[in-house]
C-alpha cells in the first residue's frame, strides 16, 4: 500500500472519526449533499465527501451502488438532482471545454473513435492539451505496447483501455478519474494499468471506481464505500486497515449472540463455543471491555487484520452506516 503524503493537512470533518484528510476548499473533488434521481429511483442520496490533493482515492461498492452516476456527475455528464460537487475548484455543472485540459477521464464503456488508428488518435488529441508531454506519450505507448498503426476498433478491450489511458495520462492531468478501468481485463493488463497509475500517483490526484479490490488495495491511499447511493465510509486506507478487524472469541460454553451488540460489530455469528464478528471501529481496549461485558470471561480472543475484499464483503452484507 502506498503511503499518503504527510503534507496533507489533516482536518477532521464533523462526524468523521476516521481521520480522513479533508482540506476544504482545495480538495480536487468535493461533494455536498449530492443527490441524483432517475425518475423514482434514487441513485445517490445526500453524498458528502472529498478527495484530497495527491490521493489515490478508490471508490468501491456493489453493482448499482451509484459509483458511475457519481463520476458522471463529477464529469458533468449527468446533472445532480440536488446538492453540489466541485472538481478542481470548479462547480461540476460548469465542467466543460478547457476544464478538461486538467482532467484525464477513462471509463470502461467509453466509446472511442474506432475508425482511428492509435497513432492518429493520439496525434489528434495532442493539440487539445497545452500540457501534452510527447516524451510521456512515447513512454506510455512503449509501456503499453500500443500498436500505433492499428485501428482502435481492431484492438482488444484491454488494448483499447490502454490506448484510452495513454491518451488520458499523456497530458499530465491534475486529476485522473477512472470508472471501472480494470473491469473485464486479464490480470496482466490489470497489472500494467495499475503500474501506470502508480507511476502517475503523487503528480496527479487519482479517483478510481472499481470492483477489483485486490488491484485497488495495491495502490489506493484512500477509499470510499458507496452502497445504494449512500456513502458508507470514506477514509485513508491505513485508517481503514486499522479500523477493521475480524474478531474470533473462544468461550468455555456455547452462547447465544446478544441482541444489543454495538453498531460497529458486523456479521456477528456463533458456532458452538466460538463467536465471530467484524469490528468496524477496532480499539483493543474498548473492544476487550465490551466483550467482557457481553460474554464474560473469554478463553481466547483473536484480532485478525482484514483484506479490503473482506472489509468490502462485511460492509456490503451489513445494512448500516459504518462511517
Amino acid at each position, binding site marked *: 500500500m502506498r503511503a499518503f503524503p504527510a503534507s496533507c493537512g489533516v482536518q477532521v470533518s464533523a462526524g468523521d472519526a476516521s481521520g480522513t484528510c479533508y482540506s476544504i476548499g482545495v480538495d480536487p473533488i468535493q461533494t455536498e449533499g449530492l443527490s441524483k434521481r432517475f425518475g423514482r429511483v434514487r441513485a445517490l442520496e445526500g453524498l458528502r465527501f472529498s478527495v484530497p490533493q495527491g490521493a489515490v482515492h478508490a471508490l468501491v461498492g456493489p453493482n448499482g451502488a451509484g459509483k458511475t452516476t457519481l463520476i458522471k456527475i463529477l*464529469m458533468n455528464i*449527468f446533472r445532480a438532482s440536488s446538492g453540489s460537487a466541485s472538481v478542481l475548484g470548479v462547480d461540476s455543472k460548469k465542467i466543460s471545454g478547457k476544464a478538461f*485540459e486538467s482532467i484525464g477521464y477513462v471509463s470502461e*464503456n467509453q466509446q472511442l473513435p474506432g*475508425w*482511428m488508428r492509435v497513432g492518429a488518435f493520439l496525434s489528434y488529441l495532442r493539440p*487539445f492539451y497545452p500540457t501534452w508531454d510527447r516524451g510521456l506519450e512515447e513512454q506510455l505507448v512503449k509501456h503499453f505496447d500500443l500498436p500505433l498503426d492499428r485501428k482502435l476498433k481492431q484492438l482488444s478491450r484491454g488494448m483499447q483501455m490502454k490506448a484510452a489511458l495513454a491518451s488520458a495520462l499523456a497530458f499530465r492531468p491534475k486529476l485522473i478519474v477512472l470508472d471501472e478501468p480494470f473491469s473485464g481485463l486479464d490480470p496482466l493488463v490489470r497489472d500494467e494499468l495499475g503500474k501506470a497509475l502508480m507511476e502517475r500517483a503523487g503528480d496527479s490526484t487519482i479517483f478510481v471506481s472499481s470492483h477489483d479490490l485486490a488491484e485497488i488495495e495495491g495502490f489506493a491511499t484512500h477509499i470510499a464505500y458507496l452502497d445504494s447511493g449512500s456513502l458508507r465510509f470514506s477514509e485513508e486506507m491505513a485508517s481503514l486497515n486499522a479500523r477493521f478487524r475480524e474478531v474470533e472469541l473462544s468461550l468455555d460454553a456455547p452462547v447465544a449472540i446478544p441482541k444489543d451488540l454495538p453498531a460497529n460489530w458486523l456479521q456477528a455469528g456463533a458456532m458452538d463455543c466460538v463467536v465471530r464478528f467484524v469490528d468496524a471501529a477496532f480499539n483493543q481496549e474498548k473492544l476487550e471491555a465490551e466483550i467482557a461485558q457481553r460474554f464474560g470471561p473469554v478463553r481466547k480472543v483473536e484480532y485478525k487484520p482484514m483484506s479490503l475484499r473482506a472489509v468490502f464483503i462485511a460492509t456490503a452484507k451489513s445494512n448500516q452506516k459504518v462511517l
Partner: protein
Amino acid sequence: MSQILNIFQKDARHHWPEVLVSWALLSVYVWNQPRKWANQTVDIRLVSTLLNMLPALMFVAWAFLIARLVQGETLVGDRQFWITRPYVWYKLLAAKLLVILMSFHIPLFISQIVLLRLGKFPVVSSLGSLVLIQFMFASILVAGALALSVVTSGIGQASLALLIVFLLTLGIAGIESLIPNAGMVDDVDGVQALLYIACCVTIVLLQYTRRRTLLSRMVILGTITVMVLVLALTPYEPILRHNYPLATKDHPLPAKFTFDRTLTFAHGERLPGRWVEEEVPLELPFQVADLDDKSIVQLQAIRLDLELSGGRRWTSHWHALSNVLSSGRTRTWPGVSVEKKLYDEIKDTPVKARVSLGMRWFRLGAATSVTVEGDRISLPGNAQCVDDMSLNWLRCFSALKQLKPVFIAAQLPNPECRVAREATAEEPWAASAATYSDLQADTGPEFDLSPVQDFSIGLSRFYFYEDHEIRLPICSGTRLLVSRPELQYAVRDEVDLGEITLANYHSTFPRKVIPPVQRPPRAPSDSLSRNILPEVVPCKTRIAAD
C-alpha cells in the same frame, strides 16, 4: 482556431468518401443540366431514371454527409470519449460548419457559377443572389439535417427521425386540409417557416452547448405542436376578410361581375368518377364588364354561401382561384365545390346563393414590344426563350428567378401566320388577345439547385363562353407586348345569385353548356393544333432548339 482546424482535418480524413460521393453527384448534375436544357435524353433507361432522380439523390447524399459528420462527435448519450475532452462547443460546431461549407456550400456555389456560364448568363451580377441561395440551403436543408443529426446517435436513428418528421408533415398537411380556409392565408406559411428555422437553430445550439437531448426532442415536439396550433387557431375568416376588404369609394371594384343566369350546364348522364367522391365541383358563369385595357384582375378566392330550407345555412368557406382577367375578357367561370351529400340532397331544389370573390387588381406598366424571330426570343429580365413547338409554348431560361410578375399579350392576328389568318376568318374568338400572366410577386432568387430557371410561357385564348382555353402556337413574326403588372390593391365583391339550382352548374362530361354556342366548321383546337405540323406551317418557325 487550431482546435477548429484540428477537428476539421480529422473530419476531412474520415468523411472523404461521403464528400466524394456528394461531389460526384454534383458533377453529374452540372454535366446533365445543359443536356436537359437542350432536351437531350439518355437512351439507357436506368441511366435516364437515375438522372431524373439526381436532385433527390443529391439531397440524400448531403443529408447523409451532414448526419455522419455531426454524429462523428455524437451529442446523444453519455459514453462518447470526446465529451470529457477539452472540446470547446463553439469550436466543435464551427469545425462541423466548416466541413459543411467546404464540402457542400462552396462546391454548390461553384457549380452554380459554372451553370450560369454554361447558360450564358452574367455571373458577376448574380453573385449576391447566389450567396442568398446558399443561405436558403443553409436555412432549409443544412439546418434541418443538423437538427435531426444532433438529436440522434446514428444514421438508423436519424433515418427513423426523418421518417417520423415526414409522417408528421403529412399529418399536418392532412389537418390543414380539414380546417376551413386553411391554406388561403400565406402568413401562416411564413410563421411555420420561422418556427422551423427557430426550432432547428435552438436545438442545434442547445445540443452543442448543453447536450440536453431529451429537452431538444421536446423542443421538436413542442414546435410541431405549436405549428398545429397555429394552423388550427389562426382566425382565417377575419384575416381573409381583412385581406380582401369590401370595395370602397377609394378602392372600387376593378370590374363589374354579374352572375349570368342564362347559362347552365345541360342535365344529362354524367360519367362516374369525374370528380372527387366527397365533393362536387360547380362552375358559376359570370359576366365581366368595365375592365379597362390597362387592368388585370386576378380572382384569388371564392366563397359560396347557401340558404337552405328551414333557415339552414351552408358555406363552402374560402377556396383558392386562379382566374386571370385582362382586357377583352367578358366572362369567367369561378369554380367552387359542394359536399356531395349536401349536393345530392339539394341539387334540384332552388336555393338562395351568395358568392364572395376575393380579387387583386393590377395596373399594367409600360409594355415592351418583342417580336418573335425564328424560334428564339429574348424577353425583358434577361429571359432567353426557345419556341417549343411540340407543346405550343416558349421554353424560357433566366438567371436565378423566373420572369414575374409579368403579363404578355400577343398581337393577333399575325398576318404571317397562316393558321391565325384562317382562324380569324372562320372563328369570331380568334381575334381576342392571347395572353400569359404570372402574377406572383418577385421575391428574389428561387430556392433551387440550378441558378438557371427553366420555365414555360404559353399564350392562351378563351373561346365559346370563355369556358374553354387553348394554348396557341407562336409563329415567327408575332409581336408580344411584355408588361410588368403592379399590384394596386385587393378587394372583395359579394354577388347575390338569387335562387339557383346547383345541378345547373355542375359540369357535364362531356361538357355541354346551354344554350350551346354555334360551333365553327372545325373545332378550334383542331385547326390550331395542325399548326404545329411543319408541313402545314407556312411561317418561318423551325423545330426548336439546337
